[in-house]
Protein backbone atom coordinates (compact mmCIF):
# COMPACT_ATOMS: atom_id res chain seq x y z
CA UNK A 1 0.00 0.00 0.00
CA UNK A 2 2.80 2.41 0.93
CA UNK A 3 5.45 1.01 -1.41
CA UNK A 4 6.44 3.32 -4.19
CA UNK A 5 9.32 4.28 -6.36
CA UNK A 6 11.17 7.54 -6.34
CA UNK A 7 13.49 8.59 -9.13
CA UNK A 8 13.83 4.94 -10.05
CA UNK A 9 14.56 3.81 -6.50
CA UNK A 10 12.16 1.29 -4.97
CA UNK A 11 10.93 2.30 -1.52
CA UNK A 12 8.96 0.18 0.88
CA UNK A 13 7.35 3.34 2.10
CA UNK A 14 7.72 6.99 1.16
CA UNK A 15 9.31 8.22 4.41
CA UNK A 16 12.92 9.29 4.10
CA UNK A 17 15.23 10.34 6.92
CA UNK A 18 16.20 13.93 6.05
CA UNK A 19 19.84 14.99 5.85
CA UNK A 20 21.53 16.13 9.02
CA UNK A 21 19.21 14.26 11.34
CA UNK A 22 20.71 11.20 13.05
CA UNK A 23 22.76 10.48 9.94
CA UNK A 24 26.17 10.74 11.54
CA UNK A 25 27.17 7.08 11.40
CA UNK A 26 26.28 3.84 9.71
CA UNK A 27 25.20 2.47 13.08
CA UNK A 28 22.54 5.09 13.69
CA UNK A 29 21.39 5.00 10.05
CA UNK A 30 20.88 1.29 10.43
CA UNK A 31 18.83 1.89 13.53
CA UNK A 32 16.68 4.42 11.68
CA UNK A 33 16.16 1.95 8.85
CA UNK A 34 15.09 -0.61 11.43
CA UNK A 35 12.69 1.98 12.87
CA UNK A 36 10.74 1.97 9.65
CA UNK A 37 12.24 4.61 7.35
CA UNK A 38 11.77 3.89 3.66
CA UNK A 39 15.20 5.36 2.94
CA UNK A 40 17.89 7.15 4.92
CA UNK A 41 20.16 10.07 4.19
CA UNK A 42 23.71 10.37 5.46
CA UNK A 43 24.51 13.68 7.13
CA UNK A 44 25.95 16.04 4.53
CA UNK A 45 29.52 15.02 3.73
CA UNK A 46 32.01 17.73 2.86
CA UNK A 47 35.37 17.94 1.15
CA UNK A 48 37.46 18.03 4.31
CA UNK A 49 37.25 17.67 8.04
CA UNK A 50 35.18 20.46 9.54
CA UNK A 51 34.02 20.96 13.12
CA UNK A 52 30.91 22.96 12.37
CA UNK A 53 29.79 25.75 14.63
CA UNK A 54 30.14 25.78 18.39
CA UNK A 55 27.12 24.99 20.51
CA UNK A 56 24.36 26.00 20.89
CA UNK A 57 23.76 24.55 17.44
CA UNK A 58 20.10 23.63 17.78
CA UNK A 59 17.28 25.38 19.63
CA UNK A 60 13.97 23.76 20.46
CA UNK A 61 10.55 25.36 20.53
CA UNK A 62 6.99 24.10 20.59
CA UNK A 63 6.46 24.44 16.88
CA UNK A 64 9.87 24.82 15.33
CA UNK A 65 13.56 24.15 15.68
CA UNK A 66 16.36 26.45 14.70
CA UNK A 67 19.71 25.00 13.82
CA UNK A 68 23.12 26.17 12.81
CA UNK A 69 25.07 23.00 13.12
CA UNK A 70 27.40 24.29 10.45
CA UNK A 71 28.03 21.14 8.47
CA UNK A 72 30.47 19.24 10.65
CA UNK A 73 32.04 16.41 8.70
CA UNK A 74 35.03 14.11 9.01
CA UNK A 75 35.54 14.80 5.28
CA UNK A 76 34.69 12.24 2.64
CA UNK A 77 38.09 10.58 2.84
CA UNK A 78 37.88 9.85 6.56
CA UNK A 79 34.86 7.61 6.53
CA UNK A 80 36.16 4.27 5.36
CA UNK A 81 34.59 2.20 8.08
CA UNK A 82 31.28 3.98 7.65
CA UNK A 83 31.19 3.28 3.95
CA UNK A 84 31.77 -0.38 4.62
CA UNK A 85 29.08 -0.61 7.25
CA UNK A 86 26.60 1.34 5.17
CA UNK A 87 26.39 -1.69 2.94
CA UNK A 88 24.56 -3.54 5.67
CA UNK A 89 21.60 -1.17 5.65
CA UNK A 90 18.66 -2.78 3.94
CA UNK A 91 16.88 0.33 2.71
CA UNK A 92 18.16 2.74 0.08
CA UNK A 93 20.89 5.07 1.31
CA UNK A 94 21.15 8.62 0.04
CA UNK A 95 24.47 10.39 0.45
CA UNK A 96 24.11 14.12 1.02
CA UNK A 97 27.15 16.13 0.01
CA UNK A 98 28.18 19.76 0.15
CA UNK A 99 31.11 21.80 -1.03
CA UNK A 100 32.15 25.39 -1.51
CA UNK A 101 32.96 25.35 -5.20
CA UNK A 102 31.82 23.48 -8.26
CA UNK A 103 35.17 21.74 -8.48
CA UNK A 104 34.87 20.54 -4.90
CA UNK A 105 31.34 19.33 -5.53
CA UNK A 106 32.66 17.29 -8.41
CA UNK A 107 35.54 15.97 -6.32
CA UNK A 108 33.31 14.88 -3.44
CA UNK A 109 30.61 13.52 -5.74
CA UNK A 110 33.04 11.45 -7.72
CA UNK A 111 34.48 9.81 -4.65
CA UNK A 112 31.11 9.29 -3.03
CA UNK A 113 29.74 7.79 -6.26
CA UNK A 114 32.52 5.21 -6.12
CA UNK A 115 31.03 3.99 -2.81
CA UNK A 116 27.77 3.39 -4.62
CA UNK A 117 25.04 4.95 -2.54
CA UNK A 118 21.52 4.63 -3.96
CA UNK A 119 21.45 8.34 -4.66
CA UNK A 120 23.51 11.46 -4.09
CA UNK A 121 21.81 14.54 -2.74
CA UNK A 122 23.47 17.85 -3.51
CA UNK A 123 23.06 20.22 -0.60
CA UNK A 124 23.13 23.47 -2.52
CA UNK A 125 20.98 25.09 0.11
CA UNK A 126 22.49 25.21 3.57
CA UNK A 127 21.80 28.58 5.18
CA UNK A 128 24.27 28.11 7.99
CA UNK A 129 27.65 28.68 6.49
CA UNK A 130 28.89 31.57 4.50
CA UNK A 131 31.18 29.86 2.07
CA UNK A 132 29.23 26.66 1.52
CA UNK A 133 26.12 26.03 -0.35
CA UNK A 134 23.63 28.81 -0.16
CA UNK A 135 24.84 30.78 -3.11
CA UNK A 136 24.61 27.75 -5.36
CA UNK A 137 20.97 27.24 -4.56
CA UNK A 138 19.98 30.83 -5.15
CA UNK A 139 21.43 31.18 -8.59
CA UNK A 140 19.86 29.09 -11.36
CA UNK A 141 22.92 29.10 -13.59
CA UNK A 142 25.30 28.00 -10.83
CA UNK A 143 22.82 25.35 -9.72
CA UNK A 144 22.72 24.15 -13.31
CA UNK A 145 26.48 23.86 -13.50
CA UNK A 146 26.82 22.02 -10.20
CA UNK A 147 24.26 19.46 -11.26
CA UNK A 148 25.48 18.96 -14.78
CA UNK A 149 29.12 18.60 -13.79
CA UNK A 150 28.30 16.25 -10.95
CA UNK A 151 26.19 14.17 -13.34
CA UNK A 152 29.25 13.67 -15.51
CA UNK A 153 31.25 11.91 -12.81
CA UNK A 154 28.56 9.90 -11.03
CA UNK A 155 27.61 7.30 -13.63
CA UNK A 156 24.02 6.25 -13.23
CA UNK A 157 23.59 7.17 -9.61
CA UNK A 158 20.47 9.33 -9.28
CA UNK A 159 21.31 12.91 -8.37
CA UNK A 160 18.92 14.86 -6.15
CA UNK A 161 19.15 18.63 -5.91
CA UNK A 162 18.18 19.93 -2.50
CA UNK A 163 16.81 23.44 -2.77
CA UNK A 164 16.60 26.37 -0.46
CA UNK A 165 13.18 28.01 -0.20
CA UNK A 166 14.73 31.33 0.71
CA UNK A 167 14.86 32.93 -2.67
CA UNK A 168 12.52 34.55 -5.15
CA UNK A 169 13.93 32.20 -7.75
CA UNK A 170 12.98 28.75 -6.42
CA UNK A 171 11.18 27.73 -9.58
CA UNK A 172 13.96 28.96 -11.82
CA UNK A 173 16.54 27.08 -9.77
CA UNK A 174 14.43 23.91 -9.89
CA UNK A 175 14.06 24.20 -13.62
CA UNK A 176 17.77 24.75 -14.04
CA UNK A 177 18.45 21.57 -12.07
CA UNK A 178 15.96 19.69 -14.19
CA UNK A 179 17.59 20.88 -17.38
CA UNK A 180 21.00 19.99 -16.01
CA UNK A 181 19.89 16.40 -15.60
CA UNK A 182 18.95 16.13 -11.94
CA UNK A 183 16.86 13.08 -11.17
CA UNK A 184 14.80 14.59 -8.38
CA UNK A 185 14.19 17.75 -6.43
CA UNK A 186 14.39 17.77 -2.65
CA UNK A 187 12.29 20.63 -1.35
CA UNK A 188 13.32 22.11 1.01
CA UNK A 189 16.19 22.81 3.31
CA UNK A 190 15.49 25.02 6.32
CA UNK A 191 13.77 28.40 6.26
CA UNK A 192 14.95 31.88 7.05
CA UNK A 193 17.30 31.72 8.79
CA UNK A 194 15.72 32.85 12.01
CA UNK A 195 17.06 34.14 15.29
CA UNK A 196 16.28 33.75 18.96
CA UNK A 197 17.44 36.39 21.42
CA UNK A 198 17.57 35.65 25.12
CA UNK A 199 16.28 38.80 26.73
CA UNK A 200 17.98 38.29 30.08
CA UNK A 201 21.42 38.21 28.50
CA UNK A 202 20.38 40.37 25.52
CA UNK A 203 22.06 38.20 22.93
CA UNK A 204 21.26 35.70 20.18
CA UNK A 205 21.39 32.21 21.67
CA UNK A 206 22.66 30.24 18.69
CA UNK A 207 26.42 30.49 18.60
CA UNK A 208 26.20 31.29 14.90
CA UNK A 209 23.50 33.82 15.89
CA UNK A 210 21.09 32.71 13.16
CA UNK A 211 19.79 29.27 12.27
CA UNK A 212 17.56 27.60 9.72
CA UNK A 213 13.98 27.04 10.84
CA UNK A 214 12.35 23.62 10.53
CA UNK A 215 9.51 21.66 12.09
CA UNK A 216 5.71 22.00 12.18
CA UNK A 217 5.78 25.78 11.77
CA UNK A 218 7.21 25.61 8.26
CA UNK A 219 4.71 23.09 6.91
CA UNK A 220 2.31 25.58 5.30
CA UNK A 221 5.21 27.21 3.49
CA UNK A 222 6.54 23.87 2.31
CA UNK A 223 3.13 22.66 1.11
CA UNK A 224 2.75 25.81 -0.95
CA UNK A 225 6.29 25.45 -2.27
CA UNK A 226 5.74 21.84 -3.33
CA UNK A 227 2.39 22.72 -4.85
CA UNK A 228 4.05 25.32 -7.01
CA UNK A 229 7.07 23.20 -7.93
CA UNK A 230 4.74 20.41 -9.01
CA UNK A 231 3.23 22.74 -11.57
CA UNK A 232 6.56 23.86 -12.94
CA UNK A 233 8.90 20.89 -12.98
CA UNK A 234 8.28 17.32 -13.96
CA UNK A 235 10.96 15.76 -11.75
CA UNK A 236 9.82 13.75 -8.75
CA UNK A 237 9.80 15.85 -5.61
CA UNK A 238 10.92 14.76 -2.16
CA UNK A 239 8.86 17.00 0.14
CA UNK A 240 10.67 17.98 3.33
CA UNK A 241 9.67 20.35 6.06
CA UNK A 242 7.36 20.18 9.01
CA UNK A 243 5.95 16.72 8.44
CA UNK A 244 5.07 15.36 11.85
CA UNK A 245 2.24 12.90 11.30
CA UNK A 246 0.47 10.85 8.69
CA UNK A 247 -1.92 13.63 7.72
CA UNK A 248 0.96 16.00 7.08
CA UNK A 249 2.62 13.36 4.91
CA UNK A 250 -0.50 12.82 2.85
CA UNK A 251 -1.04 16.56 2.53
CA UNK A 252 2.49 16.94 1.17
CA UNK A 253 1.94 14.09 -1.27
CA UNK A 254 -1.32 15.59 -2.46
CA UNK A 255 0.53 18.86 -3.02
CA UNK A 256 2.86 17.01 -5.35
CA UNK A 257 5.56 15.17 -3.41
CA UNK A 258 6.31 11.58 -4.44
CA UNK A 259 8.13 10.86 -1.22
CA UNK A 260 8.57 12.78 2.01
CA UNK A 261 11.51 13.65 4.18
CA UNK A 262 11.34 13.62 7.94
CA UNK A 263 13.72 15.55 10.13
CA UNK A 264 12.54 17.59 13.09
CA UNK A 265 9.72 15.14 13.79
CA UNK A 266 12.37 12.82 15.23
CA UNK A 267 12.57 15.38 18.00
CA UNK A 268 8.83 15.87 18.31
CA UNK A 269 7.83 12.20 18.19
CA UNK A 270 10.91 10.04 18.66
CA UNK A 271 13.08 7.83 16.53
CA UNK A 272 10.21 5.51 15.63
CA UNK A 273 8.37 8.40 13.98
CA UNK A 274 8.85 6.71 10.60
CA UNK A 275 6.84 3.68 11.54
CA UNK A 276 4.27 5.82 13.31
CA UNK A 277 3.76 8.06 10.30
CA UNK A 278 3.49 5.03 8.03
CA UNK A 279 0.87 3.50 10.29
CA UNK A 280 -1.08 6.75 10.29
CA UNK A 281 -0.94 7.05 6.51
CA UNK A 282 -2.04 3.47 6.11
CA UNK A 283 -4.89 3.92 8.57
CA UNK A 284 -6.19 6.90 6.69
CA UNK A 285 -5.83 5.18 3.33
CA UNK A 286 -7.77 2.18 4.55
CA UNK A 287 -10.64 4.36 5.77
CA UNK A 288 -10.69 6.20 2.48
CA UNK A 289 -10.31 3.18 0.27
CA UNK A 290 -7.04 4.02 -1.39
CA UNK A 291 -4.95 1.14 -2.61
CA UNK A 292 -1.63 2.79 -3.28
CA UNK A 293 0.07 5.93 -2.13
CA UNK A 294 0.94 6.56 -5.75
CA UNK A 295 -2.70 7.42 -6.48
CA UNK A 296 -2.40 10.45 -4.25
CA UNK A 297 0.56 12.29 -5.71
CA UNK A 298 -0.48 15.77 -6.75
CA UNK A 299 -4.23 15.16 -6.47
CA UNK A 300 -4.78 18.54 -4.85
CA UNK A 301 -4.22 20.02 -8.28
CA UNK A 302 -7.21 18.29 -9.82
Amino acid at each position, binding site marked *: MLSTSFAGIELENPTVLAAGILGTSAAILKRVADSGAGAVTIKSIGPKKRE*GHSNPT*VLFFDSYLMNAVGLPTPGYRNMEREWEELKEINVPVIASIYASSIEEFVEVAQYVASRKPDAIELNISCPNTKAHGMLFGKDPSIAHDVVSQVKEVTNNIPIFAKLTPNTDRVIEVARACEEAGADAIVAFNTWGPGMYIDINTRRPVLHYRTGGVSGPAVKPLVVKGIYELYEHVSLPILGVGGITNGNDAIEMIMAGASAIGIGSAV*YYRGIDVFKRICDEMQGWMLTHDYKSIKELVGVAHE
Partner: protein
Amino acid sequence: MNDVTKTYKILEIKQETPTIKTFTLDTALEGTPGQFVMVWVPGVDEIPISISNFDPLQITVKEVGEATKALHKKRIGDYIGIRGPYGNGFGLVGERVLVVGGGVGIAPLRTLMKNKNKQFTVVLGAQTKSEIFFEEDFKRNADVFVCTDDGSYGKKAFATQLAEELIQNNRYDMVVACGPEIMLKYLFGITEKHKINAQFSMERWMKCGVGLCGHCSLDPTGWRVCKEGPVFSSEQLRKVTEFFRYKRDQSGTEVEL
Protein backbone atom coordinates in the same frame (compact mmCIF):
# COMPACT_ATOMS: atom_id res chain seq x y z
CA MET B 1 8.73 23.02 27.22
CA ASN B 2 11.93 22.40 29.07
CA ASP B 3 13.80 22.29 25.80
CA VAL B 4 13.61 26.02 25.16
CA THR B 5 16.91 27.39 26.40
CA LYS B 6 16.04 29.61 29.35
CA THR B 7 18.45 31.68 31.30
CA TYR B 8 18.51 31.65 35.08
CA LYS B 9 20.35 33.65 37.65
CA ILE B 10 23.23 32.12 39.53
CA LEU B 11 22.22 32.34 43.19
CA GLU B 12 25.28 30.82 44.78
CA ILE B 13 28.74 29.62 43.80
CA LYS B 14 30.70 27.21 45.90
CA GLN B 15 34.33 26.41 45.28
CA GLU B 16 34.38 22.66 45.92
CA THR B 17 38.01 22.07 44.99
CA PRO B 18 40.69 24.20 43.33
CA THR B 19 39.27 23.17 39.94
CA ILE B 20 35.60 22.46 40.66
CA LYS B 21 32.74 24.80 41.47
CA THR B 22 29.09 24.17 42.23
CA PHE B 23 26.60 26.67 40.83
CA THR B 24 23.16 27.01 42.38
CA LEU B 25 20.58 28.35 39.96
CA ASP B 26 17.33 30.18 40.43
CA THR B 27 15.22 27.24 39.26
CA ALA B 28 14.42 23.64 40.06
CA LEU B 29 14.02 20.53 37.94
CA GLU B 30 12.40 17.18 38.38
CA GLY B 31 14.14 14.10 37.14
CA THR B 32 16.20 11.02 37.80
CA PRO B 33 19.72 10.88 39.25
CA GLY B 34 22.23 10.64 36.42
CA GLN B 35 20.40 13.00 34.09
CA PHE B 36 22.12 16.04 32.71
CA VAL B 37 21.32 19.50 31.41
CA MET B 38 22.71 21.43 28.47
CA VAL B 39 24.31 24.53 29.93
CA TRP B 40 24.63 27.59 27.74
CA VAL B 41 27.51 29.86 28.65
CA PRO B 42 26.38 32.95 26.75
CA GLY B 43 28.66 33.83 23.90
CA VAL B 44 30.95 30.86 24.52
CA ASP B 45 29.47 27.38 24.17
CA GLU B 46 26.77 25.03 25.34
CA ILE B 47 27.96 21.91 27.15
CA PRO B 48 26.43 18.86 28.83
CA ILE B 49 26.70 18.92 32.61
CA SER B 50 25.21 16.46 35.05
CA ILE B 51 22.68 17.57 37.59
CA SER B 52 24.27 17.52 41.04
CA ASN B 53 21.05 18.67 42.74
CA PHE B 54 17.51 19.02 41.44
CA ASP B 55 15.83 21.51 43.75
CA PRO B 56 17.34 24.03 43.60
CA LEU B 57 19.15 23.11 40.44
CA GLN B 58 22.87 22.72 41.00
CA ILE B 59 25.63 21.85 38.59
CA THR B 60 29.16 21.01 39.58
CA VAL B 61 31.73 21.84 36.99
CA LYS B 62 35.42 21.22 36.56
CA GLU B 63 37.42 23.79 34.67
CA VAL B 64 38.99 22.01 31.73
CA GLY B 65 38.68 24.29 28.71
CA GLU B 66 37.07 27.39 27.27
CA ALA B 67 33.44 26.91 28.29
CA THR B 68 34.11 25.60 31.77
CA LYS B 69 36.64 28.38 32.29
CA ALA B 70 34.08 31.00 31.26
CA LEU B 71 31.62 29.36 33.62
CA HIS B 72 34.11 29.51 36.45
CA LYS B 73 34.43 33.25 35.83
CA LYS B 74 30.71 33.82 36.36
CA ARG B 75 29.51 35.62 39.46
CA ILE B 76 26.42 35.50 41.56
CA GLY B 77 23.62 37.26 39.68
CA ASP B 78 24.94 36.36 36.24
CA TYR B 79 22.68 34.42 33.93
CA ILE B 80 23.40 31.11 32.29
CA GLY B 81 21.11 29.07 30.04
CA ILE B 82 19.67 25.68 30.87
CA ARG B 83 17.64 23.12 29.00
CA GLY B 84 16.79 19.64 30.12
CA PRO B 85 16.86 17.39 32.08
CA TYR B 86 18.07 14.96 29.45
CA GLY B 87 19.02 11.32 29.24
CA ASN B 88 17.86 8.28 31.13
CA GLY B 89 19.56 8.39 34.52
CA PHE B 90 20.37 5.48 36.79
CA GLY B 91 17.87 2.75 37.51
CA LEU B 92 18.82 1.17 40.81
CA VAL B 93 18.04 -2.48 41.34
CA GLY B 94 18.52 -4.48 44.49
CA GLU B 95 19.39 -3.24 47.97
CA ARG B 96 23.09 -2.91 48.28
CA VAL B 97 24.63 -0.52 45.83
CA LEU B 98 28.29 0.25 45.35
CA VAL B 99 28.75 3.76 44.00
CA VAL B 100 32.08 4.68 42.43
CA GLY B 101 32.94 8.24 41.50
CA GLY B 102 36.14 9.50 40.00
CA GLY B 103 37.06 13.18 39.79
CA VAL B 104 34.19 15.46 38.79
CA GLY B 105 32.26 12.26 38.02
CA ILE B 106 31.41 12.30 41.70
CA ALA B 107 28.96 15.13 41.04
CA PRO B 108 25.90 13.36 39.58
CA LEU B 109 26.19 10.52 42.09
CA ARG B 110 25.23 12.74 44.99
CA THR B 111 21.61 12.89 43.79
CA LEU B 112 21.37 9.12 44.30
CA MET B 113 21.69 9.67 48.02
CA LYS B 114 18.13 11.02 48.26
CA ASN B 115 17.03 7.41 47.94
CA LYS B 116 16.59 6.21 51.52
CA ASN B 117 15.61 2.67 50.56
CA LYS B 118 19.06 1.55 49.49
CA GLN B 119 22.20 0.68 51.30
CA PHE B 120 24.94 2.66 49.64
CA THR B 121 28.65 2.15 49.78
CA VAL B 122 30.49 4.97 48.10
CA VAL B 123 34.01 5.12 46.74
CA LEU B 124 35.28 8.61 45.99
CA GLY B 125 38.51 8.82 44.06
CA ALA B 126 40.63 11.81 43.08
CA GLN B 127 44.23 12.60 42.34
CA THR B 128 44.79 14.41 45.57
CA LYS B 129 43.12 15.44 48.81
CA SER B 130 41.99 18.85 47.69
CA GLU B 131 40.06 17.37 44.76
CA ILE B 132 37.72 15.32 46.94
CA PHE B 133 34.31 17.00 47.31
CA PHE B 134 30.76 16.19 48.45
CA GLU B 135 32.21 13.75 51.01
CA GLU B 136 29.97 15.00 53.81
CA ASP B 137 26.88 14.86 51.61
CA PHE B 138 27.51 11.22 50.81
CA LYS B 139 28.24 10.34 54.40
CA ARG B 140 24.72 11.26 55.38
CA ASN B 141 23.35 8.18 53.65
CA ALA B 142 26.28 5.93 52.85
CA ASP B 143 29.45 4.26 53.96
CA VAL B 144 32.10 6.34 52.27
CA PHE B 145 35.59 5.26 51.26
CA VAL B 146 37.97 7.82 49.92
CA CYS B 147 41.13 7.22 47.92
CA THR B 148 43.63 9.49 46.25
CA ASP B 149 46.30 8.73 43.66
CA ASP B 150 48.94 10.39 45.81
CA GLY B 151 47.66 9.10 49.12
CA SER B 152 47.23 12.60 50.50
CA TYR B 153 43.78 11.64 51.79
CA GLY B 154 42.06 8.34 52.38
CA LYS B 155 43.66 5.32 50.88
CA LYS B 156 46.46 5.65 48.35
CA ALA B 157 44.81 3.79 45.52
CA PHE B 158 42.81 4.16 42.37
CA ALA B 159 39.07 4.08 42.87
CA THR B 160 38.97 0.91 40.81
CA GLN B 161 41.31 -0.89 43.18
CA LEU B 162 39.34 0.16 46.21
CA ALA B 163 36.15 -0.89 44.46
CA GLU B 164 37.54 -4.31 43.67
CA GLU B 165 38.53 -4.85 47.30
CA LEU B 166 35.05 -3.91 48.44
CA ILE B 167 33.50 -6.22 45.87
CA GLN B 168 35.69 -9.08 46.99
CA ASN B 169 34.74 -8.63 50.61
CA ASN B 170 31.07 -7.70 50.34
CA ARG B 171 27.98 -8.60 48.47
CA TYR B 172 26.60 -5.82 46.27
CA ASP B 173 23.53 -6.02 44.08
CA MET B 174 24.97 -3.57 41.62
CA VAL B 175 27.69 -1.07 40.93
CA VAL B 176 27.03 2.41 39.59
CA ALA B 177 29.81 4.66 38.49
CA CYS B 178 30.75 7.91 36.86
CA GLY B 179 34.22 9.13 36.05
CA PRO B 180 36.93 9.15 33.40
CA GLU B 181 36.41 6.53 30.71
CA ILE B 182 39.72 4.90 31.63
CA MET B 183 38.46 4.36 35.18
CA LEU B 184 35.21 2.95 33.85
CA LYS B 185 37.11 0.67 31.53
CA TYR B 186 38.97 -0.98 34.41
CA LEU B 187 35.93 -0.99 36.61
CA PHE B 188 33.96 -2.73 33.90
CA GLY B 189 36.64 -5.40 33.76
CA ILE B 190 36.20 -5.87 37.49
CA THR B 191 32.40 -5.98 37.50
CA GLU B 192 32.43 -8.43 34.62
CA LYS B 193 34.96 -10.62 36.36
CA HIS B 194 32.88 -10.64 39.53
CA LYS B 195 29.63 -10.93 37.62
CA ILE B 196 28.03 -7.89 39.17
CA ASN B 197 25.63 -5.78 37.21
CA ALA B 198 26.91 -2.31 36.63
CA GLN B 199 25.52 0.99 35.34
CA PHE B 200 28.02 3.54 34.10
CA SER B 201 27.46 7.11 33.06
CA MET B 202 29.27 7.66 29.79
CA GLU B 203 30.32 10.76 27.85
CA ARG B 204 30.32 11.50 24.16
CA TRP B 205 30.37 14.76 22.22
CA MET B 206 26.94 16.34 22.33
CA LYS B 207 25.31 18.89 20.10
CA CYS B 208 21.54 18.66 20.38
CA GLY B 209 21.27 16.69 23.62
CA VAL B 210 17.82 15.43 22.69
CA GLY B 211 18.47 12.60 20.28
CA LEU B 212 18.04 14.53 17.03
CA CYS B 213 21.44 15.14 15.52
CA GLY B 214 22.91 11.68 16.03
CA HIS B 215 26.31 13.06 16.94
CA CYS B 216 26.56 11.14 20.21
CA SER B 217 25.49 7.80 18.78
CA LEU B 218 27.45 4.66 19.48
CA ASP B 219 28.87 1.85 17.37
CA PRO B 220 27.48 -0.58 16.50
CA THR B 221 24.10 -0.21 18.24
CA GLY B 222 23.31 3.35 17.24
CA TRP B 223 22.26 4.19 20.80
CA ARG B 224 22.41 7.89 21.49
CA VAL B 225 24.29 8.77 24.66
CA CYS B 226 22.05 11.80 25.16
CA LYS B 227 18.85 9.80 24.85
CA GLU B 228 19.31 6.08 25.51
CA GLY B 229 22.23 7.07 27.80
CA PRO B 230 24.18 8.55 29.39
CA VAL B 231 23.76 5.60 31.75
CA PHE B 232 24.37 2.17 30.26
CA SER B 233 24.04 -1.20 31.92
CA SER B 234 26.55 -4.03 31.77
CA GLU B 235 24.44 -5.78 29.21
CA GLN B 236 24.53 -2.68 27.02
CA LEU B 237 28.18 -1.93 27.66
CA ARG B 238 29.09 -5.36 26.32
CA LYS B 239 27.38 -4.53 23.03
CA VAL B 240 28.89 -1.11 22.51
CA THR B 241 32.20 -2.03 20.93
CA GLU B 242 33.36 1.58 20.78
CA PHE B 243 33.34 2.08 24.55
CA PHE B 244 36.80 2.28 26.01
CA ARG B 245 38.27 2.25 22.48
CA TYR B 246 37.30 5.32 20.47
CA LYS B 247 34.83 8.20 20.27
CA ARG B 248 33.90 10.93 17.83
CA ASP B 249 35.10 14.50 18.05
CA GLN B 250 33.18 17.67 17.17
CA SER B 251 33.50 17.03 13.45
CA GLY B 252 32.32 13.44 13.77
CA THR B 253 35.78 12.01 13.14
CA GLU B 254 36.72 8.94 15.15
CA VAL B 255 39.49 9.44 17.68
CA GLU B 256 41.18 6.75 19.72
CA LEU B 257 40.79 6.90 23.46
